[in-house]
């Protein structure tokens, strides 16, 4: 059981956002999807989480097809969108409970899970604060906690650490490291040190296409560069190997 992406393509009008993307992500793998602005990372995540229908191609998410059985796929995954998306007039606790409940928890279970996640993400002091009053970083933390509360088998984190303070970022890394191997994590980020610290494998997209795929060491060997930053720049250069 794995995530098998086959020739996945999404076209907007005349712009190809994701171009015949094919790759396999193992169950429990921590996969980092890199690429410049507009490379197609968010669109890929939207396709894989059934928020958009692909123009062509398909992906089998732990046994279920995104185009044939999106409802089954949706039960397995959760997402922390690029823009933090929390309910403005609900408190931190209510936001968490709400997500737990629409994924099927009863009232009591939802309360317990909300408590656990507020603990994990250091949100206890803001339990009763409304979403609209949170600072950017707190909102981000809540947004990630909301993605985790349904205990998904696959989690998509679209630039989750934007705006987090140093401690919150390191705490999140630790949370993600603890989850490693248990659930499949697909992360996009522009912070390369994050990738070095967390990712099992890296995929680099450029203009909708997959430019490179492998572990950090493999990519280093492939490019002959030592630093991930240089690896990245070389692989996303215009005349780079396609």
């Amino acid at each position: 059981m794995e995530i098998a992406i086959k020739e996945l393509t999404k076209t907007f009008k005349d712009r190809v956002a994701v171009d015949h993307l094919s790759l396999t992500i193992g169950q429990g793998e921590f996969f980092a999807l890199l690429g410049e602005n507009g490379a197609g990372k968010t669109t890929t995540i939207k396709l894989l989480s059934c928020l958009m229908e692909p123009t062509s191609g398909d992906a089998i998410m732990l046994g279920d097809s995104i185009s044939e059985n999106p409802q089954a796929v949706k039960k397995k995954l959760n997402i922390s969108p690029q823009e933090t998306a929390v309910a403005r007039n609900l408190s931190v606790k209510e936001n968490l409970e709400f997500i737990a409940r629409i994924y099927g928890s009863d009232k009591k279970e939802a309360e317990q899970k909300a408590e656990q996640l507020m603990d994990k993400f250091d949100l206890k002091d803001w339990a009763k604060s409304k979403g609209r009053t949170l600072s950017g970083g707190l909102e981000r933390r809540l947004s990630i906690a909301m993605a985790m509360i349904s205990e998904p088998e696959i989690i998509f984190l679209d630039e989750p650490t934007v705006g987090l303070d140093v401690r919150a970022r390191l705490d999140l890394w630790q949370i993600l490291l603890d989850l490693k191997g248990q659930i499949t994590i697909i992360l996009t980020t522009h912070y390369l040190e994050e990738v070095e610290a967390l990712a099992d494998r890296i995929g680099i997209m450029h203009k909708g296409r997959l430019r490179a795929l492998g572990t950090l060491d493999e990519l280093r060997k492939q490019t002959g560069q030592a630093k991930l930053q240089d690896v990245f720049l070389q692989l996303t250069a215009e005349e780079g190997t396609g």
Partner: protein
Amino acid sequence: MRALTFAQRNRKEILRDPMTLLFGMILPLLMLWLFSMMAENMPFDLFTLRKLAPAIIVFSFSFITLFTGMLIGRDKSSSFLMRIFSSPMTAIDYLIGYALPLLPVAFIQMAACYGTALLLGMPITYDAIPAFGVLVIISLLYIAFGLFFGTFFTDRQVGAMFAIFVNITTWLSGTWFELDMIGGIFETVAYLLPFAHAVDASRAVFAGDYRAVLTPLVWVIAYTAVIFGTAVWGFRKRMRG
């Protein structure tokens, strides 16, 4: 069950934004009071409470369209909708979840308007009981319009659309003047839209003229079904990107 959880969230979201709510509550009451004072100096009976109050209640429902439309529009622009679109909720769950919390709001508006009309001197009759039932049905029309606007427009556009909508619903409904006073195309158009029918049904049921309720109510129900259906269709489409 999911729909109810979602409805609960939406209820909190609406009730905790007291400004819009107050606006939608106080403005109709103010209109009721002002126009009923004018009635004494008018040569016609349009602004007498028994004609005015049933129409103003329907007018107050146009704010329900605003609340619903704004809520959905805001959920779209904050990508909150994207987050919950990736959950196992279905299109019907969403639309029930958005619509349900507006029913008690409609009920409070009815009660407030009717209560005010009584204070201003409208006589109490038993006809108010079936009238409340008919008004609940009419409120569904305005909820459906809210779902429709929220589905197809952004929260900013909903604000602009509402300005147009509220004008259409009042000018073409016979609330401020008799439609047959103008007649012609104006009246024809008004009766092709559901708003004049809604006001007619409301007035008829408050007057105890139950036979005159049915036809306009059929218009209202038919429009509700079509608008609701279109919203569901648009929503499904949006869910798939």
